[in-house]
């Protein structure tokens, strides 16, 4: 009987992708992130919402290694990545996008994806000068073209990235992440500046990430999109996670109402 119980508990054991333990980050005495502890299971689409200035981006900056001088600890797939630089964290497969889309503007769309392809021959100095790296480019190049096609950007592969529309820029960012085979992605307002038509396309692509088993953490202000995409949602206010759950639970949470609507909302909630 005991053996059976153990087997059941092992099967039910959830693998944690991202774990935050009492994370604190202050800027000049003001705590942008103030004691956040969070566990995000593998393969979860996790949404972070909250009013402006609640510490969402700082939290993602701490996880991704942009900000390194914080208190507390960050674990990714069981590895303690506290204080690691961003490139080392990215090499582990924890990737991110930024609040305003970041592309290499003077490079072509295809180059923007090719630059991210991992383990390319010709990236090291002696390989670049003396090696025969051109033949080895065929694999990553075909993959990059395939990704651009699947993201609806194949007709724009020779265009400068700076010439792309807001939505195309976001799609290109996702295509660039995809070529790196991520295990988890942190998306900071991926729908900002995206037109309604491309919003639908982007929504499908984000669902595709989850379908591929990738853990997704998304900061987003458009709550209808959060509701559509996220399995679980954390609400941040004043640097803390004040509530967690699905959107239906959060709609009636008085702390959440208070954070979004102020004291009026709080009063209404009590009424």
């Amino acid at each position, binding site marked *: 009987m005991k053996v059976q119980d153990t087997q059941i508990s092992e099967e039910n054991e959830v693998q944690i992708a991202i774990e935050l333990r009492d994370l604190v980050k202050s800027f000049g005495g003001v705590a942008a992130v103030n004691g956040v502890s969070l566990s995000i299971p593998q393969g979860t689409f996790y949404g972070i*919402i909250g*009013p402006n200035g609640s510490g969402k981006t700082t939290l993602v900056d701490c996880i*991704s290694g*942009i900000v390194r001088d914080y208190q507390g600890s960050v674990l990714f797939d069981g590895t303690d990545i506290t204080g690691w*630089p*961003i*490139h080392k964290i*990215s090499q582990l497969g924890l*990737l*991110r996008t*930024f609040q305003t889309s*970041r*592309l*290499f*503007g*003077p*490079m*072509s769309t*295809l*180059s923007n994806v*090719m*630059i*991210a392809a*991992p383990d390319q021959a*010709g*990236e*090291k*100095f002696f*390989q*670049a*000068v003396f090696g025969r*790296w051109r033949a080895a*480019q065929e694999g990553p*190049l075909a993959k990059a*073209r395939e990704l651009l*096609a*699947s*993201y*609806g950007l*194949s*007709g724009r592969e*020779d265009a*400068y990235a700076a010439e792309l529309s807001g939505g195309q820029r976001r799609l290109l960012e996702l295509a*660039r992440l995809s070529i*790196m085979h991520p295990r988890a992605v942190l998306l900071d307002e991926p729908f900002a500046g995206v037109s*309604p*038509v491309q*919003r*639908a*396309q982007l*929504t*499908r692509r984000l669902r595709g990430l989850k379908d591929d088993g990738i853990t997704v953490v998304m900061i987003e*202000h*458009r*709550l*209808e*999109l959060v*509701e*559509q995409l996220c399995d679980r949602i954390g609400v941040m206010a004043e640097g803390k996670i004040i509530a967690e759950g699905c959107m239906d639970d959060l709609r009636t949470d008085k702390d959440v109402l208070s954070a*979004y609507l102020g004291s009026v909302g709080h009063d209404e909630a009590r009424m």
Partner: protein
Amino acid sequence: MGALDYFLLTLLFFGAVNALQVLGFDMQFGQVGVVNLAYVLLVAIGAYATAIASVPPAGHIIAVTYIGGFGWGFPWNLLFGIAVTVVAAFLLSTIAFRRLRYDYLALVLVSVGEAILLLATNQTNIVNGETGIVGVVGPWQNSLSNSSWYIAMSLLAVAFLVVMCVFYYKVESSPLGRLFKGVREDEILIDSLGRNSARLKVLGFLLGAACAGLAGGLLVLFIGGWSVGGWQPGETFIIVAALILGGRGRITGALVGAFVLMELFLQGGSLLKLPVSPVTLPIYQQLIAGIAILAVLWWRPQGLFPEKKEKFPSASKPLKTSNQDLAEPIAVSGESQWRTQ
């Protein structure tokens, strides 16, 4: 050989060396985006180190003091000059590159360049102060006739330029070159793609420094000496102007910029016998460089030969595109009652 032949050979030599200098600066500024306003310091280190490797120890001559003095011949003196420049650039990069944004980094590099210039001028026992190091004998100088030596040195400089151009092209067109340009555009983004931008930036800086050291070494082997007058801050300004004129991030841009500004306007200007004294000539040269920068930035900010887009082999067969993505109706639901934007 007549005076004009000597003049043209000198022009050829300086043309090649100037192009090497601009090419090295382009590797630092055009490729990895380091605005090295102390670039001429690296040229000077290459020149001094080559000179020190070439001349005998200072004790042989009264009132001349400098570090070292190895009496080595070509090519060891030149290789030593390049190696010392690369090591110095590495030390400079470890001090200056830490956590500095490109504009502050430029200011720090200017300050370091000025400080070392003052040190070299006033601390006479390092590189013999303002007088500098003289008596460097160029390769084959004692065995060839004067005219043959001029030809040999010019060809040597051109050969080095060709080699460095091939080297630059190989780096620039490779995945490493793509990463270099990525570092230039956005270091954090490169880091977020799993590459160490700091290491890449230092590598590009060192490659440019090697080019600067080579140019400095060739200069001292041709001129026969080097002093603080050869690396005043204005020299960097002219190199910057040449690259902005030609266009950064591309060999053609560096070569054309070096030729048009440094050869045609500055060196070639001496053919015209302008009524300008040698003392005021550098001032006019810098004035021309300044006007060139303003004119290019106004009318053609990308330079005469702008950077090219990376070319990839065309796809062998058309890839299947997801047209249905574009055709599908919008699936986003209505506005939320909590919309915050």
